[in-house]
């Protein structure tokens, strides 16, 4: 009887400690990690594309010449997402724009915040709250000289247990006045999944 009681105690302690081990844990990860979890478009792919495009644009000789004397005004077009995935492509162009601004070589126009800007200018002009000398007038903004356009495509192949996904991000800088593409480059990423026979 004594033996049975101590065995029961041991088992309950073991069960409690196991339950402790099974608890979910959360920890901070490295935002710059290049560890792929799947063939889907991931954070590392986004960072690689942004850095590659920015490095290429700011070191392209005609662009170096152009930005040597002044900071051209650019605007970013929406990415044409031709992949089969739902990707927040604005996040990719946001990263590219932020990096380009940080180089100090370009200035940008952001059309996504125009509604708020119009509302603010209207308030300054019409509410009577703002000193007319400091109020901003309509029609004073600078027009963009260049447009950054992008295409994002994917080729997916599957053979047996192997899935091969090829991504291609193409970006171009279009002169709005002449229509000429002043710069263009592409970043390719290939991800291969080998599905294990014994894995999930």
């Amino acid at each position, binding site marked *: 009887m004594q033996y049975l009681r101590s065995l029961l105690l041991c088992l309950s302690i073991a069960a409690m400690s196991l339950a402790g081990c099974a608890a979910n844990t959360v920890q901070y990860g490295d935002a710059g990690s290049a*560890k792929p979890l799947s063939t889907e478009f991931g954070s590392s792919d986004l960072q690689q594309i942004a850095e590659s495009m920015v490095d290429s644009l700011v070191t392209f000789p005609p662009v170096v010449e152009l930005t040597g004397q002044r900071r051209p005004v650019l605007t970013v077009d929406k990415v044409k997402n031709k992949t089969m995935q739902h990707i927040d492509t604005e996040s990719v162009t946001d990263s590219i724009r932020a990096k380009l601004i940080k180089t100090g070589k370009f200035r940008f126009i952001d059309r996504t915040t125009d509604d708020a800007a119009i509302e603010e200018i209207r308030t300054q002009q019409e509410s009577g709250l703002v000193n007319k000398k400091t109020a901003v007038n309509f029609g004073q903004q600078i027009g963009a000289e260049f447009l950054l356009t992008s295409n994002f495509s994917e080729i997916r192949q599957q053979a047996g247990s192997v899935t091969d996904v090829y991504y291609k991000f193409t970006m171009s800088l279009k002169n709005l006045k002449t229509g000429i593409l002043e710069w263009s480059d592409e970043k390719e990423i290939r991800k291969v999944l080998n599905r294990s026979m014994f894995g999930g």
Partner: protein
Amino acid sequence: MYGFICGNRGRLSAVLLGLSLLTSLAGCSTTAGIEAAGKTGWNQEGERILNKNVVINNSSLAGEIEVVDMKSALAGDMMKAQVSLRSRDRDTINIQYAFDWLDAQGMAVGGGTTVWKPFIVYGRETRTIQGVAPDPRGREFKLKIRETDD
């Protein structure tokens, strides 16, 4: 002796298992294995030079990958860095790299996240890695190379 080994076979296998576990864990390490640093300087004639320095923290990775050359150039006022790597291995090597940038005073520029990028070097191949400073202040680079964290 034979009796000792046989009698302690369980203990011996436990030690061997522990050693092999340690070895496999060391293989998965994500420490900065090799650091190739280049700092802009000027010689007595006033010409721009690159002071080079390679730090090896992981001798097994350094046995597979060798830093053979470091160069830098200016694109306008932006510093470009190029590091050539040569594989000493016959097999394909998967590594990751990241650039850190510092200004002339040694202060970090760019800030934010250190972005690690995957890089494949085939057997006995020489490949170059290029990086561009995040802004015109960058005058010193540090290329960090490590094994993949999988």
